[in-house]
């Protein structure tokens, strides 16, 4: 706005204060995130079953991983995560559209109602499904009174997907709603006025303009569900083994930290490639609000 007032001192101060304010966060990330991850990556290169970081590095853990069934659990995890993303995109798009464009006061209510669920531990919510779907549970028992006898609906792959879709719905819904909010109404109206069909408007206006939201939601859900541990155990029983469960086993019963670390490094590698690809394409400032005026 009033440009001339900004002298050199002010800018220098901005630089200084910005750095100082960011410092606590950066230190936290350094010691609580970056270094521990480097530690994992390095541990993955240590000989199997050792607990020290001081051996000569080698790739034998990785060779072992690719010769075993770990590839299968990685494939299961990836498949489950992809299925969750696709189902959530289809389920959430209409709802997000409603939140962003159609519902007025109702949108706040729906937002609070769904966001509040995040405050209940996902274990408890998943256990709710167990009670609903187990033999003589709420769903099966109710069907039973209508004469439809049913065994437990638990412990299979579709139920695990249901659990993931359920737990990660808010992480898809809210980015999508923010993304759809970014589509200006005038553009849609202009497209309609020019004779575009509903499908054309969706395909050529809504979809490209809300793409940041779609991408952020999808990546967030994918990353969270590929590392998920509770869904497959609580709802899936022993039906499949996910990569996160494999990693946990190596760190607990297996007592093979280097192998667990190598598995974690692979998992992190896959997710980080995706995350960086997406975050580099999106301007977070546009997404969350506006850029600050002083610059």
């Amino acid at each position: 706005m009033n440009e001339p007032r900004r002298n050199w001192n002010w800018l220098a101060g901005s630089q200084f204060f910005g750095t100082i304010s960011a410092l606590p966060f950066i230190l936290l990330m350094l010691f609580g995130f970056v270094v521990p991850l480097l530690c994992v990556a390095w541990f993955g290169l240590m000989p199997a079953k050792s607990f020290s970081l001081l051996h000569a590095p080698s790739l034998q853990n990785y060779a072992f991983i690719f010769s075993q069934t770990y590839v299968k659990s990685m494939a299961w995890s990836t498949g489950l995560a992809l299925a969750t993303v696709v189902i959530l995109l289809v389920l959430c798009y209409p709802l997000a559209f409603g939140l962003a464009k159609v519902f007025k006061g109702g949108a706040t209510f729906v937002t609070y109602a769904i966001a509040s669920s995040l405050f209940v531990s996902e274990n408890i919510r998943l256990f709710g499904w167990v009670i609903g779907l187990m033999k003589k549970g709420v769903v099966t028992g109710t069907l039973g009174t209508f004469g439809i006898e049913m065994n437990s609906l638990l412990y299979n792959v579709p139920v695990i997907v249901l659990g993931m879709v359920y737990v990660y719905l808010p992480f898809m819904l809210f980015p999508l709603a923010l993304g759809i909010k970014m589509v200006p109404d005038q553009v849609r109206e202009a497209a309609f006025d020019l004779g575009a069909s509903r499908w054309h408007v969706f395909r050529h206006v809504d979809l490209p303009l809300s793409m940041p939201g779609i991408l952020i939601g999808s990546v967030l859900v994918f990353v969270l569900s590929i590392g998920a541990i509770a869904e497959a155990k609580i709802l899936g029983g022993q039906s499949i083994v996910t990569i996160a469960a494999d990693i946990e086993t190596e760190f607990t019963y297996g007592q093979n930290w280097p192998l667990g670390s190598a598995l974690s490094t692979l998992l992190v590698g896959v997710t980080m490639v995706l995350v960086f690809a997406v975050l580099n394409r999106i301007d977070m400032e546009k997404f969350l609000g506006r850029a600050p005026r002083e610059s």
Partner: protein
Amino acid sequence: MIVTRAQKVGLSFYAGVVLLLFYFPLFCIITASLSKKRYFSFPYAWEDVTLKWYEDAIASPQVQEYVGISLKVAVLSTICSLFIGFFGALAYARYSWRWRKSFQKLVLLPLFFPQSVLGLALLMWFNFLDITPSWWTAVIAHTVWIAPIATLIMSIQAYSQDDSLEEAARDMGASRWQILRWITFPLLAPGMVSAACFCVLLSWGNFALSLFTTGADSALPEWLYARMTSGYQPIVPAVGSLSVFAAIALVCLVFGISARRSAHKVAQEGGH
């Protein structure tokens, strides 16, 4: 006009169905917690409704211990996260500095990350530093995950507020520190309340991080998980329901306060 009336009704109906399904598991938990039988079966008779399991849950010293640990972790990691998040939000949204864009990406990184892996990375790091994991290492783990969320919430708050007050103060010759102390902080303080609410509840419910970083101590979600995977026990839904009620109470309290404050503000502004 974006949608027709029929479409609007359809969308509202859809939202209602999603919400119902969304709260269905919580309904199940509460239903199960009220059933007298040791092995839950649905439907059950009115005579079988009991609060016995709640009494058991509240009286259980084990549950009390886990609740205590969860609370300690939640409160401490919230305090740390608010401090880091407040300054983080200034760097994110208020000051323009050279590495701001990179900083904004750094803030998102821990959120786009498998939590279980983060938990065990910290476990190994603590092990390497020769620190025995206990509840306070969980505080660090929770802070690593919650501080970015606090930063984002307060940044959104900072974005949504007009910075003309700060500009005016600057024009009148206030120093950076004075602006921070007398203008930015009071403006962002209401945002801190909702951020604090978020932080406490997210830490309270967190499982994946606690699983690896609490060591010999155990947080409530861990205990519940251990019980859930080893067969049905009626105390589990009772503790779960109690935790749900506590969350609802906290949410109502915070929204109540903020609604009252904004009503107050509207009344004041209307008066002038």
